[in-house]
């Protein structure tokens, strides 16, 4: 069949998504030509808000760059606006005269920001928030002007105001109504939102109606109907959008508020399809992407002549993309005489939930502060599920249906497979889980690349991460032990560890050949894991492989985003002398260290050190008596201590002294992941021992040993392992616990998930109940420490691995 000509007018989100759907179904059907008024490839318009807030770059929000058009044989006319459509000849003409013939035409011209017709609206510095150009204008203004006013307290206005505020401007939001986002939120939620934005420094003028824009050439202020004024060097209007229908009207297509389409997204001219914000379907013009993407699917289905899809309208939900503010709304959340409400409000905590029910079916919901269950309520609402069976616990969320706890990971576990996770792209839980397990995905970016989930507005990122953690975490998977170590092999962590010991495998190539690795060199994941497993199994024989270590461990510092390093000297138990501080200060002066900081681990971090300088910096620190703090390694990190009995009026034992002893015992040890300790002098627990991998809480009668806490991404409070009575015992239990963790856990598994996986009983058995085993474990730990407690900095200051730190200089001119 001869290829037909397909022309798309409008290189935006809806139009290009339609092309993607067409290419998926039948890539050979059309010669495709695209006209876009904006001079770019296709970008994610929603992400302009994070770009304005400097949380993303333009490069990061491109959905399809120009290469994509080339790869798919699509002719792209960017920066060209279509002025005329000749429906009789089936030809479109751009303002520069470029023409194209079509057999099928797609209109996806989006919408135009609505500009209030105020006197002075044509002044410089008065803009809308719609495209890259607007964002550039705003970012420029933030450099030279201090004050901005945003008219409109809706989604778009607040995102603009937040972005400008993050850029350092003083921002006032002017709103006609009495509450923010009045179309998406009820009064309670609006007030919480306003309060939290005010706390961040945003100013509001509510119930203010604008009368005139002041200024000469450039805007200088805004005057209101009541005669008052507000100063502004930048005025952003975000009061609404109207479908962009001028082109469609000019060629006689039937339009009302938008271009009128039927359930197949066809306009009144059967050769012309339309979708996106420019259309009106069953009386509704949508302004969010989820419906547009559904429309795109249907249109594509008809354009490739499958003819089976139909679009019957969308139920939409709303989220706000302001970092740190969780907000969700859907459906009819106001209610009326025939509906009931269930409400939860905890003002101090900033949490508010309201669900509107009619006949025990959800009609709408507003959530503020805690939105994890938004997608569940949305699903129940769309499905019209009768909730009477669990109505009394509905507000506590889906997790409450079982007794699965409250962390997000287990909460996503209870979602059904058809629960929608990503509203923008309509991706369900089942699809994501399948992609993760079939394609062995491990990172958020991979999930985005494969499913598009969380690739648009990003507000479901948390849910997708929880799903990922849950799916690959090994805790839930039906066959947890069958997860391969990485893509290079089918062998699991446990099989490899066992094989190393049983088969006396002592080098990486031996391991790789005995387990039939698919990549000869392995990959960064398995190389660093194997290096650790071999080191742990053969502490006296195995020669560490620097090239299999992540750069931080190879250079013994943390790589920074600009390629420099940070250096953290160890301060045992957080204790230091005036001389120690003076020596660090001298080093900082000598090497002109740009930034210093007291870390969360009770010691001092020096930032911005160039790699070539590292050996010299270390030499000076070593000479002053410091050793490396291993702040960069999968290794023992810090021992946090509190003041203790020496000074504190509540202290029961010498927590600092014990902390120093523990750090002297454990420093230098390589571990499956980082390992942190703490000793608190009494149950007030100032050293936060109950969120550490190994924590000691001193009490009058001795020492409580707490294990497997984590204060990071997912906070986990420790389990109490046992109570013992002497310092010597604490040291022995600590050595034994470290060694058990070192020998048993998977690489990159911290103690918290490890203990959850193998069970506290196993640890108690080995470390507490079986004294023989405890002693044996501790003995192996002490043996491994003999070789491990060599200061890597001292070695390198003395010339070990010096090539690593010596660039090759050539004077042959510049590279070209």
């Amino acid at each position, binding site marked *: 069949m001869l290829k037909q000509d397909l022309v798309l007018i409008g290189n935006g989100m809806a139009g290009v998504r339609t092309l993607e759907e067409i290419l998926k179904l039948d890539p050979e059907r059309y010669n495709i030509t695209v006209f876009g008024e904006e001079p770019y490839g296709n970008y994610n318009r929603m992400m302009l808000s994070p770009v304005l807030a400097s949380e993303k770059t333009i490069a990061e929000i491109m959905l399809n760059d120009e290469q994509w058009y080339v790869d798919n044989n699509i002719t792209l006319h960017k920066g060209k606006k279509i002025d005329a459509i000749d429906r009789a000849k089936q030809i479109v003409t751009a303002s520069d005269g470029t023409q194209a013939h079509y057999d099928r035409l797609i209109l996806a011209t989006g919408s135009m920001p609505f500009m209030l017709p105020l006197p002075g609206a044509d002044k410089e510095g008065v803009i809308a928030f719609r495209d890259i150009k607007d964002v550039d204008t705003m970012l420029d203004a933030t450099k030279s002007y201090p004050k901005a006013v945003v008219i409109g307290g809706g989604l778009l206005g607040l995102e603009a105001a937040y972005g400008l505020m993050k850029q350092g401007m003083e921002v006032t939001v002017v709103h006609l109504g009495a509450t923010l986002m009045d179309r998406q939120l009820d009064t309670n939620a609006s007030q919480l939102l306003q309060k939290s934005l005010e706390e961040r420094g945003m100013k509001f003028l509510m119930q203010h109606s604008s009368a005139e824009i002041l200024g000469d050439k450039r805007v200088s202020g805004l005057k209101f109907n009541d005669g008052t004024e507000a100063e502004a060097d930048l005025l952003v209007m975000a009061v609404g959008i109207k479908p962009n229908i001028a082109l469609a009207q000019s060629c006689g297509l039937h339009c009302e508020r938008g271009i009128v389409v039927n359930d197949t997204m066809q306009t009144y001219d059967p050769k012309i399809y339309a979708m996106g914000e420019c259309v009106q379907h069953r009386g509704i013009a949508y302004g969010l992407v989820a419906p547009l993407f559904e429309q795109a699917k249907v249109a594509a289905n008809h354009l490739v002549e499958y003819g089976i899809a139909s679009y019957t309208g969308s139920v939409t939900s709303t989220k706000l993309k302001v970092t740190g503010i969780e907000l969700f709304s859907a459906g009819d959340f106001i209610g009326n005489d025939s509906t009931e409400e269930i409400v939860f409000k905890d003002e101090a905590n900033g949490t508010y939930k309201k669900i509107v029910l009619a006949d025990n079916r959800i009609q709408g919901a507003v959530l503020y502060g805690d939105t994890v269950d938004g997608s569940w309520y949305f699903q129940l609402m769309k499905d019209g599920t009768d909730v009477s069976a669990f109505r009394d616990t509905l507000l506590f969320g889906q997790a409450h249906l079982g007794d699965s706890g409250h962390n997000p990971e287990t909460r996503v576990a209870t979602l059904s497979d058809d629960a929608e996770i990503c509203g923008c792209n309509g991706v369900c839980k089942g699809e994501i889980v399948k992609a993760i397990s079939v394609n062995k995905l491990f990172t958020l970016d991979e999930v985005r690349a494969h499913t598009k989930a969380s690739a648009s507005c990003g507000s479901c990122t948390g849910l997708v991460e929880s799903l990922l953690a849950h799916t690959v975490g090994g805790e839930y998977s039906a066959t947890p032990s069958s997860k391969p170590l990485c893509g290079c092999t089918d062998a699991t962590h446990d099989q490899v560890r066992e094989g190393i010991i049983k088969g006396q495998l002592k080098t990486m190539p031996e391991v790789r050949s005995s387990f039939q690795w698919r990549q000869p060199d392995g990959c960064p994941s398995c190389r660093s894991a194997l290096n650790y497993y071999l080191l742990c199994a053969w502490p006296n024989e195995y020669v560490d492989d620097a090239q299999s270590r992540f750069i931080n461990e190879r250079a013994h510092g943390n790589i920074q985003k600009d390629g420099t390093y940070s250096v953290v000297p160890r301060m045992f138990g957080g204790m230091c002398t005036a001389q120690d501080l003076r020596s660090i200060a001298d080093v900082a002066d000598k090497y002109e260290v740009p930034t210093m900081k007291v870390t969360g681990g009770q010691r001092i971090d020096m930032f911005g050190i160039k790699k070539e300088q590292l050996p010299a910096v270390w030499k000076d620190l070593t000479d002053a008596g410091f050793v490396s703090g291993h702040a960069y390694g999968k290794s023992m990190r810090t021992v946090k201590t509190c003041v203790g009995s020496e000074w504190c009026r509540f202290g029961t034992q010498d927590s600092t002294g014990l902390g120093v002893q523990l750090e002297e015992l454990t420093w230098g040890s390589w571990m499956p992941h980082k390992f942190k300790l703490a000793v608190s002098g009494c149950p007030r627990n100032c050293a936060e021992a109950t969120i550490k991998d190994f924590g000691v809480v001193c009490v009058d009668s001795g020492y409580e040993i707490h294990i497997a806490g984590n204060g990071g991404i997912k906070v986990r409070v420790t389990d109490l392992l046992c109570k013992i009575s002497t310092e010597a015992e604490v040291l022995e239990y600590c050595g034994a616990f470290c060694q058990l963790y070192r020998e048993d856990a998977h690489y990159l598994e911290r103690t918290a998930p490890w203990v959850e996986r193998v069970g506290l009983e196993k640890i108690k058995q080995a470390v507490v109940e079986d004294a023989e085993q405890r002693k044996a474990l501790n003995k192996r730990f002490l043996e491994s420490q003999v070789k491990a407690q060599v200061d890597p900095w001292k070695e390198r200051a003395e010339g070990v691995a010096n090539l690593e730190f010596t660039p090759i200089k050539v004077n042959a001119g510049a*590279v070209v």
Partner: protein
Amino acid sequence: MNQWIEITLLKDIPVLGSRIVETEDANIAVFRGSDDQVYAVKDACPHKQGPLSQGIMHDGTVTCPLHNWKINLTNGEAQGPDSGCVNVYPIKVEDGQVFLKLQSEEPEV
């Protein structure tokens, strides 16, 4: 600068490791594979200019230390779902001595 420049001995580049060559205006990362094949690319990841020389090298590829993009060292292309490209420079080994040309194989775009 279209001539071969002597830069270092092969043995002074660690196997599956790298060295940095500093020139007047930019750094070049020189890698050595497990088969002694050598590669030279500009030391700046196409993603956010991460120093590729500091990444882990494996089978003709390097994984950037900052956000784990994988860059093919033969053609400079990012692999997998990522897209981007880094300049590649001609490099050869003769009698254990490594030579480099500072003229990139493809003009910068």
